């Protein structure tokens, strides 16, 4: 099943870019740094090349293997499967986090009278249909629908360009370097570290020699977009307003009512969130079917989507809770999934590779 489906490198770039942008645009993990957010974005951007590079390197060391297969390969049958179970939980949790933050955004910004669960259920219909059609259709759809994202960015930036005030950036580093580093770490764990999920998708790519190139291209695009949006929001809104509001992109519209691009932002938000949830759920489904040795993941699509929707309703009490968890708890919760286990995998596969090379040379 896995070998039939193929994704081109262009589609990988689109998927990865959409995935990394995802709900980070909604929640804005660097808001702790205030007006110095752009510094922490630049810092994280540089570090994220190393992090994403590590994930791609793991994929290169274990060609044509998904994360579950790699784990079973390295930690043995029992521990490998146990670790994959943990990752399955992680992916499920992340997918419902994204679904929750997206529906929360929609409720607060556009449909204040609609119940939250209703929004989540309706948005999950295309998700389930897309997963039924498979990753190939999702990749192609990504290429078509992602056209709206640059359009939205350009329109929304152009419409507020005369409100930009560079002095909002000053004084630089007023509170010292500590909050900057902290939000840097937040940003590293929040969208970039979640790239670990692509270890489930890499086996589908048809030209594996370009993996580094295409993932670095998408990391670059994501960095540029983050920087641009962050600078725009800081210069237009100023630190004070930025700290008080939830969704900075939405705030711009409410403060400067001349610019009616709210629908565009919501639509691009939907598409980004959909790409992110698709990848999480796809990875989850593949992990389940590989862990229990099923040939096909399609029977699990609807159950998993339903679980994810209901989980998204339970995980937070309300939106402030969501922001608190995303900024204060999640970064530490993510450390084992994003750093510790991948580093162990990398070290062990490097040792294995060296051993097998040594055997060949003997």
């Amino acid at each position, binding site marked *: 099943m896995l070998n*039939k489906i193929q994704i*081109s490198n*262009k*589609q990988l770039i689109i998927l990865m870019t959409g995935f990394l942008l995802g709900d980070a645009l909604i929640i804005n993990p660097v808001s702790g740094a205030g007006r110095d957010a752009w510094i922490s974005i630049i810092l994280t951007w540089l570090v994220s090349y190393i992090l994403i590079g590590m994930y791609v390197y793991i994929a290169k060391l274990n060609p044509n293997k998904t994360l579950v297969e790699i784990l079973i390969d390295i930690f043995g049958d029992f521990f490998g499967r146990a670790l994959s179970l943990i990752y399955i939980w992680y992916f499920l949790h992340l997918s419902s986090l994204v679904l929750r933050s997206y529906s929360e955004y*929609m409720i607060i910004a*556009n*449909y204040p009278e*609609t119940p939250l669960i209703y929004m989540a259920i*309706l*948005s999950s*219909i*295309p998700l389930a*249909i*897309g997963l039924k*059609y*498979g990753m*190939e*259709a*999702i*990749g*192609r*759809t990504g*290429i*078509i*629908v992602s056209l709206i994202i640059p359009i939205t960015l350009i329109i929304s930036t152009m419409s507020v360009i005369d409100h930009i005030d560079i002095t909002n950036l000053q004084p630089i580093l007023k509170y010292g370097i500590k909050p900057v580093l902290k939000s840097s770490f937040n940003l590293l764990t929040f969208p970039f570290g979640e790239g670990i999920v692509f270890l489930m998708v890499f086996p589908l790519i048809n030209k594996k020699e370009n993996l580094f190139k295409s993932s670095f291209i998408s990391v670059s695009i994501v960095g540029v977009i983050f920087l641009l949006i962050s600078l725009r929001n800081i210069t237009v809104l100023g630190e004070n307003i930025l700290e008080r509001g939830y969704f900075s992109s939405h705030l711009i519209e409410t403060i400067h009512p001349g610019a*009616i691009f709210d*629908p565009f932002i*919501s*639509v691009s938000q*939907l*598409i980004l969130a*959909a790409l992110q949830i698709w990848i999480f759920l796809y990875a989850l489904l593949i992990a389940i079917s590989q862990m229990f040795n099923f040939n096909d993941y399609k029977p699990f699509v609807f159950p998993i989507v339903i679980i994810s929707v209901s989980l998204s309703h339970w995980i937070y009490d309300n939106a402030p809770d969501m922001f608190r968890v995303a900024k204060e708890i999640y970064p530490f919760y993510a450390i084992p999934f994003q750093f510790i286990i991948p580093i162990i995998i990398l070290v062990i596969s490097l040792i294995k590779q060296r051993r097998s090379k040594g055997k060949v040379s003997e």
Partner: protein
Amino acid sequence: MFRKLKHIFKYIKLDKEKLRKDKINISENINQQIPNHIDNIEFKLKEIFQDSNDFIIRKITTGNQFKTRILIAYIDGLIDKQLIDDNILKPLLLESQKVIDDESISKRNIIELFEETLITASEIKKVDDFNRTIKAILSGDTVIFIDGTESSFVVSMRGWEARAISEPNTESVIRGPREGFVETLRTNTSMIRRKIKNPNLKFESIELGEQTRTEACICYLKGIADDNIIRDLKKRLSCIKSDGILESGYIEQFIEDAPFSPFPTIGVSERPDKVAGKILEGRIAILCDGTPFVLTVPYLFIESLQSNEDYYSRTLYSSFNRLLRFVSLIITTMLPALYVAILNFHTEVIPVKLVFSILNSNEGIPFEPVWEAIFMLIIFELIREAGVRMPKPIGQTVSIVGALVIGQAVVEAGLVSDIMIIIVALTAISGFIVPSLSEILPFIRLALIIGANILGYMGIVLIVVIVILHISSLRSFGVPYMSPFAPFRSKGMKDTLIRMPLWTMFRKTESLSWKYSGRYSINKNFNEKEE
């Protein structure tokens, strides 16, 4: 749900097969010898064609000393009687007396004598199988049986009343050839052959339909068309089990990739120039006897926005037309839904002055916008269908009733707002710009309106994402349906939303290589599909 439908479908198929086995099957493909004696032949033929008064047997005797009895069989109405008189009867009755008397002829070489010196028809075939002669008679050939021999001649003297070549009604152009396909297969193949004078243009014929035995024909340019697609197509055609094939639509429904999808995965055209163009692009045409509509596979989504006239008129204008079609596709699917969404959820998007006029026109109307929209679209579909089925003389009544009575009276009666009338009219006009998508438009419009009523523009986006997911998952004969867009191929983009100049698309200088020269490389992504 679809799986269940599939099961039901399978059971129906099985039942049909059982029924078919019970029927008396005349299409035995066993080789049957032609009887030696001419009376036996006559008896057998009369037994087969019992009770059919259009079957005609003519018995003659030739020669002076060596009298040879000859039997000519044909079906009246399928042959040209003048040709038979001139080319068969006259030589056999008049000339044969000289020829046969001149030399002493044994019965063994009388066949060669007939073939080489007597019968003046140009197309003549010697056939030894009795079943094949019957097939030949049924398809309009004349068969000559000779007494004392075990073979017969099939002479092609076909001639029946056929429609003259005329301009097709379905795809009219301002600039371009005025001819369209007709109902006769041979005429249609000749029209394609006249456009592509190349020995690599192949016509492979197949017989479809167990009772109708319709002749169909696969047409492709060898070396340009992908062999895998040809193989796949032949496999699917050989799987057709049906009593009758009356139109190419039957074939289409048997071999298409997604029978339950609203999107067509097989192209249909009535114009030889269009079909020839598609064959040059590496596609395969399926011609079917008895219909002017020719199928082309593989069919991509972008083809429904293309027209043959785009290539005849100049680049700038045809690119403008392409964009116009794309915009009209968006208008015709989205406009009613957008109106519903804006009125229900997002009135802040409309400029203030317009808000007042819209509110004015909506005042006193008892229905919600969504019901107005669905009501007007149903009326539009009714008028459209009535216009097609109506006899021409009373066709005008429909337009009067539709335009004046419904258009005016509905607004005056306060059932529908006049802005809704404008929107439905725009929707209808834009729908006529993309006629090849007319099958899918009602479904998508309805889905979008319902989505817009539930969740505003977000509902529209959700439905659009579902539709895009669906069409990107489709394949037509192994080729991705959204091909030049997704999977994205920059080479194919030259001929999509804009049409680049012809000299950038066709590499005319490379006349040596018959291999595919890169215009939508549809060959690459083929996966063997199982039927």
